[in-house]
């Protein structure tokens, strides 16, 4: 039952669009948000089934790869890394925007983060799950994955900690754990609400088990707020460090086009850029299908569009720096890679897709009308995601394809299994995301009520001066 009348957006105190237009009481707001879960929409079951079938494609491709060998992919010498690592960097990049929204904007106390932070954080979690698949699946002998962890074995041999891959293991597991804890801590109060409001007894029991017995006393809230803020505070530098570590997979190598100091900030900006794009891609349809335009208002669209513009420009700057530093360094191999091989080599098409999608698309957000049109944002977000995947593919494959010795130049062609893995992970990601939407309120109820209370008190002060 949607209580919100189609009230025209009233300017906020600071002249911005309103963050929340909900006239009803707390109870109405709570029940409205709970209905999203307690009475799932009609399309939920078929969507779950469809994405589950997609996930089966993924698991089939994984099983086939592990039992037969990496040879079923298109990888070869010199291009030993291709779709596998591209997907890994792309997925973990997408994850970072979720943490960025829920943690970094929490520190900045940006109001517009409240209604979308769990949505984004869940996207992070499932993106990192997809990303975590590839470092293991990508190995030639995945059944010895545990050798990457320093456990005392009967061989007295340890992992080698100068390699970026051991850093990756630490970074991805830490990131997954911190995201999970941060997401779950924010979720506990809402699970308590579900425990109290669900109809059937077994459903309330189920939520009660996950709500950990949350009571909502002032002492609990105090500890929760400090704890949640602290996790947010920890997660923000973590985001930067994780994607810097992921970028160091390439930066510590000596390939032309890989080893440049711009990579860590370049990858982090690129990650947040593609992450916001994914948030938009998921949020705009969810917002319409669940009819919560009054909770996820145009203010959110506008802010996210600005974020796309900002990170877009950082990425453009990074491309420019990469090309300029190659030219300026005068080193033959770097110049060949960035100024000849990428724009005009065998993978030139990918390079120009990157330029079009990553550099040109966000420029439309200089205009306010574009920033506020959901359709424009959705299309732009898809283009940006395609552009960012293409950018990772270009960075990774072109540098390996035309390396130092011309005799070892070679090309990479994807195989069916590569494609199955890429789309399989997309399907599996959507499947997990739909499960999240099915069982957990994707808009944080407690935080939203607090926001509603704060917005109401501010409006009182403004009116009564």
């Amino acid at each position, binding site marked *: 039952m949607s209580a919100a009348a189609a009230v025209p957006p009233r300017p906020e105190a600071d002249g911005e669009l309103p963050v929340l237009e909900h006239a009803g009481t707390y*109870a109405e707001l709570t*029940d409205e948000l709970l209905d999203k879960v307690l009475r799932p929409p009609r399309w939920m079951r078929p969507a779950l089934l469809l994405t589950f079938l997609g996930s089966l494609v993924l698991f089939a491709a994984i099983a086939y790869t592990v039992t037969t060998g990496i040879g079923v992919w298109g990888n070869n010498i010199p291009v030993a890394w291709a779709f596998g690592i591209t997907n890994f960097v792309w997925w973990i990049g997408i994850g970072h925007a979720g943490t960025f929204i829920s943690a970094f904007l929490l520190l900045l106390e940006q109001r517009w983060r409240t209604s979308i932070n769990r949505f984004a954080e869940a996207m992070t979690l499932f993106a990192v799950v997809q990303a975590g698949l590839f470092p293991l699946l990508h190995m030639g002998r995945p059944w010895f994955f*545990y050798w990457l962890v320093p*456990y*005392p*074995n*009967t*061989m*007295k*041999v340890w992992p080698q900690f100068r390699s970026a891959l051991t850093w990756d293991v630490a970074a991805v597991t830490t990131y997954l754990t911190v995201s999970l804890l941060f997401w779950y801590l924010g979720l506990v109060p809402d699970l308590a609400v579900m*425990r*109290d*409001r669900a*109809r059937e*007894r077994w459903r*309330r*029991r189920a939520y*009660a*088990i996950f709500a950990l*017995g949350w009571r909502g006393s002032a002492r609990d809230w105090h500890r929760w707020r400090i704890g949640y803020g602290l996790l947010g505070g920890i997660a923000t530098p973590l985001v930067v460090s994780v994607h810097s570590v992921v970028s160091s997979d390439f930066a510590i190598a000596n390939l032309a086009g890989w080893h440049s100091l711009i990579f860590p900030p370049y990858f982090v900006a690129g990650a947040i850029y593609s992450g916001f794009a994914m948030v938009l891609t998921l949020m705009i349809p969810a917002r319409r299908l669940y009819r919560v335009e009054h909770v996820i208002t145009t203010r959110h669209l506008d802010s996210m569009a600005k974020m796309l513009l900002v990170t877009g420009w950082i990425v453009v700057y990074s491309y420019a720096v990469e090309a300029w530093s190659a030219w300026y360094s005068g080193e033959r191999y770097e110049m060949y890679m960035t100024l000849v091989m990428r724009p005009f080599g065998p993978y030139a098409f990918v390079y120009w897709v990157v330029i079009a999608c990553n550099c040109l698309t966000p420029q439309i957000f200089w205009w306010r009308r574009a920033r506020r049109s959901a359709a424009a944002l959705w299309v732009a977000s898809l283009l940006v995601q395609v552009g960012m995947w293409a950018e990772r593919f270009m960075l990774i494959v072109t540098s390996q394809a035309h390396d130092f010795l011309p005799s070892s130049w070679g090309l990479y062609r994807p195989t069916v299994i590569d494609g199955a893995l890429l789309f399989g992970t997309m399907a599996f990601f959507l499947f997990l995301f739909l499960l999240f939407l099915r069982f957990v309120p994707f808009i944080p109820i407690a935080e939203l009520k607090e926001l509603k209370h704060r917005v109401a008190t501010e409006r009182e002060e403004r009116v009564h001066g």
Partner: protein
Amino acid sequence: MHGAADLRVNLFPAYANQIYWLAIGSAAAAIVGAPAALIAWARTPYATGQGEPPEQPVKFDHRHHVRDEGIGCEYCHGGATRSARAGVPATSVCVGCHAQIWTTSPELGRVRESYFTNAPIRWRRVNALPDFVFFDHSAHVNKGVGCVTCHGRVDLMGQVYQARPLTMRWCLECHREPEGHLRPLDEVTNMEWTPDRPQDVLGRELRASLGVRSIVDCSGCHR
């Protein structure tokens, strides 16, 4: 709006908390404990294959041959001083003596059958190293490493079993500080030898005199 009344019933009995904590505690213990258990298990004698004498085609008793008859190791396993593999005696070595004594013993039926039908005796390997490990007997035997160091007191074994874990960790201990395990060359096959002087003193001397190096490079054993 949901009827508020019917929601009040308490969901769980009082003792549910204990079960809850137990469940969470055991889950945490499993996450930490399982790998630890595996790590510990890998070091048990069962995992390293120690102590179980495999079923051999002929019941050869080292106690009798070594202690009673005083046959030295090199008589049957002479390859140790010259080759990577110490080797197992050909049937002709057994028949060398057993053509004269115990010629009709049922225990030696398989030996005689092997000798006359020219079909080798298929012994079961006791001290088995993985395929990717290239152990060289001659390198060790000529550097003062005794047979007993790795094979244990074979002269006391009715049926030969693996006496040492033979894990890489175990080999590395000796490769790191060979002094602790060296003996004079003429004592290599002496199972009952004990150092007359403190082992580290004797070891340092032997290490210098025999030119023993501490090989911890991977290609020392893996190639």
